[in-house]
């Protein structure tokens, strides 16, 4: 029978606490890093948008061919995914994440307005989906999956997603202009509002341009498979078409 070595119990407690503290601080550090990364991407995007705005302001003097911007939407989409991951891994009420989310929504609206103007001016075939989701909405998860998949398949497609209940005045304005009811998920495509879940097939039906892109892509594929030397030409044509 041995007596209890209390010092050892306290020493072990101290070490265990130190391990806990290290793990928590390391995790916090990485989480902050993640938020920083999102913030820097946002800054980059807001800069891009500003430059696009200047570009459109100069549109009168420029030919529509020079208006580029497809890369931007892809970046916005990737940013959205990172943001929703940060939202899940940190607390959803985290003020840091909330601020980022609001900024992101505003950037989306800006990009949306800009692209609308480019379309009006140049008659390009850019297709937008404005998507409203909410918390505690099971169908929204599936809708989100469908839209992510579509964005992967059609990089030219622009998807703007908004948290219906996010406290941002601009979102509220967007909602009231388009008379979008609080029945989620809701999709706004070409001034038509679609409620309930829309499958990939449904959306491809609603937006005929998607089919055109699909066919184009298949042709391209065939061209590459046939190893025809004119493949770059096909690409060139496509760019002009846009």
């Amino acid at each position, binding site marked *: *029978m041995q007596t209890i070595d209390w010092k*050892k119990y306290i020493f*072990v407690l101290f*070490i265990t606490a130190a*391990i806990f503290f290290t793990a928590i601080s390391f995790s916090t550090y990485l989480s902050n890093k993640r938020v920083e990364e999102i913030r820097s991407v946002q800054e980059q995007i807001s800069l891009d948008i500003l430059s696009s705005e200047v570009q459109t302001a100069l549109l009168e003097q420029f030919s529509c061919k020079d208006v580029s911007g497809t890369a931007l939407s892809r970046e916005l989409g990737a940013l959205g995914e990172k943001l929703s991951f940060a939202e899940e891994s940190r607390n959803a009420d985290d003020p840091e994440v909330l601020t980022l989310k609001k900024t992101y929504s505003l950037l989306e609206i800006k990009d949306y307005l800009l692209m609308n103007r480019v379309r009006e001016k140049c008659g390009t075939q850019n297709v937008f989906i404005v998507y409203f989701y909410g918390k505690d909405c099971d169908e929204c998860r599936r809708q989100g999956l469908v839209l992510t998949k579509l964005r992967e398949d059609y990089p030219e497609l622009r998807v703007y997603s908004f948290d219906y209940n996010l406290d941002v005045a601009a979102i509220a304005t967007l909602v009231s202009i388009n008379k979008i009811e609080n029945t989620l998920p809701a999709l706004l495509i070409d001034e038509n509002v679609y409620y309930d879940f829309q499958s990939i097939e449904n959306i491809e039906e609603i937006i005929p341009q998607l089919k055109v892109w699909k066919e184009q892509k298949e042709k391209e594929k065939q061209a590459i498979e046939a190893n025809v030397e004119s493949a770059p030409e096909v690409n060139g044509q496509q760019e002009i078409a846009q």
Partner: protein
Amino acid sequence: MFNDISQTIIYISLFFSLYFEVFLLITYFEKRPLLRQESIQQDLARFPTVTVIVPCFNEETTIPKTIFSLLRLDYPKDKLDIIIVDDGSVDGTLRALHRFKNNSRVRVYSKPNGGKHTALNYGLQYVESELVGCLDADSFVEPGTLKTILKYFNDSETMAVTPAVRVYKPRTVIELIQKVEYTWGIFYRKMLHFLGAIFVTPGPFTIYRTEVFRKIGDYRHAHLTEDLELALRMQTNRLKIVNAHNAYVHTVVPKTLRSLYKQRLRWTYGFLNNSLDYKFLIFNKRYGNIGFYVLPMAIISIFSSILLLLILTSTNIARAYDGLIKFITVGPDLGFSFDWFFVHTSPSLFLTVFSVGLIVSILVLARRMTEGRFHFSLDLFYFLFLYGLIVPFWISHALFNTVFSRKTTWR
């Protein structure tokens, strides 16, 4: 809500498992010089008389080997007595024992079936030697085991010495998992030796001073774990139990999951019920580390392993459901992209990795202690990935049986 509760449980469990592991490792590094000292071979000053009781019930296949291993012990023949007690076997055990009929060193008794503790007590009444040991009929000793154990009786306070139990010829995955588990056990028992908190005197070849039984009484039924109860009773009476970490005994372990499950159900049920019977030990300063470290940790680990399995199962079901929804909605996900951004970095993840790291380092130390050096083999892998998944099942079953007071059987 569920998330908050499960997070809390995860962190509490992690805290206690880390505490447990750090405590064990610190004990090891603190006592390493003593461990080295003990390993030095030294001769016995004298040869006390020893009796080994082998209780057996339906063990025709292993009993001859068990007896032969005892006969081969490196010990003066006139100082070692072997008593075999057949506990009403209904297979060929008696026939197998017949061959030892004319061996003057082996005494064979047969009695109606009454359970292992009755067989041991039956044998105890014939014991006149200074020391007495028992050996399960499915275990085998090495020639030097007894002498190594007896060295520890040089300390007049030592009342019982437990050996290091190893798995006999492991082959199946279930046996290999147990091989690692027993290696862990050898390390753990040695640390408990240093902490004065050994809480089980295993059936395979624990040697006692005969006076122990005269002082505190014979074996009891003890919810079918008589070796656990006897150790707790000795601790209660402040009788010193030590461990001889290099006195090896090889034991046959369950080969199938089903038989392992039954064995562990019995052990866990026995542990829970004996802990209830001896609950006054817990957080009682009089009884040292057994009350503050060993028993509380064992009880916490029982509950946390059940809760963690529940949490793990429910989150994995939820994840699988999510995956299914995704598959139904957008089809198979063929594209693979990796981005450090999407790697989870919660504190619980780091703590889990750290805790597993400590377990691995303890296993490395344990293997070095038992086999001289560390080498990696598949059994470690089986142990780390499968053991934790199967343990909670018998634990839950034993807990259920304890709460609803159902009897657990041997076979």
